[in-house]
């Protein structure tokens, strides 16, 4: 070993050829599911992000192929249902998916083909992580990557309930949850994600979050100069920002892009379930149990007296004789 892999700042560069030590791991976890008292890591990595510029995307699906190849997933061979999405949805075997929308723009009269690469957004406030009951099954690293640690996953599906973007999928094969890792294993070795590496038009780029925002702003200025007045970046504040961000020509209407949420946030039902409900519920159950134990120890038991037995016998005798 000649040292630790560098923190990657691009997906374009070729990988280092010398053997290097992984530079992303358990020591960089800042949050983990069902582990509220996690100690802060002793170092902080630079936040990374993947930028998806939908205005440059040609819908070739090279990113999907690269994703399946790198992650060794095997999506089922599907059937043509008359749409371009293939496979029809994200799955435990397909972590990213091109979604195609045909849009008749009422303002310009133009027909637009909107193509969005769907997948995990790597939220700063991940709903999946908040919902997960299994300690350490979902982690967030200091560089912003949200990763599923499959050996800790119990397959309950709470991450699906928590996710504002409907991304995680449980594998029916091993009952564990899967999604885009932002190629955390590649990032650990100084490389950018496979999808970004494979993108022929550089619609997908990877780097530090600051550099990606800067790049997005350049792209937005260019789009605005070409008539896309509503071009903008999609880095939704409702989930604390994301580490996968979009450049959209219609940033005022994200939902045009195959239902990308306009204002995603961890649902109020999820916050209530994981917040007040848990505290109040556990306190109420604890008080009920403690009250019963205390009354049992210090209260007077309700005992049947000898007198009761005599009365009972008299009553039974009366009833039986009255009949005879």
């Amino acid at each position, binding site marked *: 070993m000649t040292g630790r892999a560098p923190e990657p700042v691009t997906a374009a560069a070729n990988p280092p050829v010398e053997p290097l030590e992984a530079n992303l791991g358990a020591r960089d976890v800042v949050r983990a599911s*069902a*582990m*509220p008292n996690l100690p802060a890591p002793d170092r902080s990595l630079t936040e990374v992000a993947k930028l998806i510029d939908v205005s440059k995307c040609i819908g070739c699906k090279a990113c999907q192929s690269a994703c399946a190849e790198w992650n060794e997933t095997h999506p089922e061979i599907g059937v043509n249902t008359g749409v371009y999405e293939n496979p029809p949805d994200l799955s435990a075997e397909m972590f990213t998916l091109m979604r195609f929308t045909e849009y008749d723009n009422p303002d310009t009269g133009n027909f637009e083909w909107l193509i969005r690469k769907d997948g995990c957004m790597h939220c700063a406030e991940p709903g999946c992580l908040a919902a997960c*009951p*299994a*300690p350490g099954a979902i982690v967030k690293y200091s560089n912003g990557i949200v990763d599923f640690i499959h050996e*800790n*996953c*119990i*397959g*309950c*599906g*709470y991450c*699906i*309930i928590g*996710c504002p973007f*409907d991304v995680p999928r*449980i594998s*029916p094969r091993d*009952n564990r949850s899967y999604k885009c890792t932002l190629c955390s294993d590649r990032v650990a070795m100084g490389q950018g994600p496979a999808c970004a590496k494979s993108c022929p038009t550089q619609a997908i780029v990877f780097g530090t979050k600051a550099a990606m925002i800067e790049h997005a702003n350049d792209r937005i200025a260019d789009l605005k100069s070409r008539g896309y007045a509503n071009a903008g970046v999609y880095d939704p504040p409702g989930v604390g920002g994301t580490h996968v961000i979009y450049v959209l020509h219609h940033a005022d209407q994200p939902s045009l892009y195959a239902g990308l949420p306009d204002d995603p946030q961890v*649902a109020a*039902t*999820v916050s*209530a*379930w994981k917040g007040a*409900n*848990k505290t*109040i*519920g*556990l306190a*109420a*159950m604890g008080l*009920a*149990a403690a009250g*019963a134990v205390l*009354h*049992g120890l210090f*209260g*007077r*038991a*309700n*005992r*049947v*007296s*000898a*007198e*009761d*037995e*005599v*009365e*009972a*016998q008299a*009553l*039974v*005798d009366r*009833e*039986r004789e*009255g*009949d005879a």
Partner: protein
Amino acid sequence: MRRRHFSDRGDRILDRNPVRVGRYRLFTRINHWIIAASTILLLLSGLAFYWPSLFWLTALFGGGQAARWLHPILGLVLAVGYLLMFVQLVARNIPRHDDVVWVRHIRDIVDQNEDKLPTLGKYNAGQKFVFWAMAGLILLLLGTGVMIWHQAFPDLVPVPARRWAVLGHSVAAALMAMTFVLHVYAGIWTRGTLSAMTRGWVTGGWAWRHHRKWLKEVAGRRD
């Protein structure tokens, strides 16, 4: 045969000296303990998913994956068991006017001023409350549980409905745990009750003290 108001078909005077009264058949008792065991196991596995520091409870079931797999199956066992029990016991658990009077004397119940309480049939209002609360909560837990049973029904309801279901499931579960504590404690505090569900009978004194109308009707029956 006279019409029964306060007792069930299988209730019998087993002995007259001292008096022993049959209260639950063997089938009912076995079913009760299946329900009790599944409730306890559901509570333990459910608490593991409910509170992070109780996740270790999954070790009792062979790990998180196994606990997650077993929990809904136990839920079905509980639901079927309770349905059978519901059909058997519902007739004697219909609220009556005596129950209203009994509840108004809550102070006298706790202070054991038995002479100030109305005489009762097979169940008092507290027992009827447990019966109906469990019935309602199990129904709610079954409905919401099926909605979030991912392995069996991955696409049954959309995600927002699943969020409501999981919230409702955990609220109902906490209420059921409290009803469970009430049920167990009432059975312990009221001495002489447990034998009804273990050996199937109670002493005459217990019946006279707590369920006099039931005792009178059972003693007077000739069927």
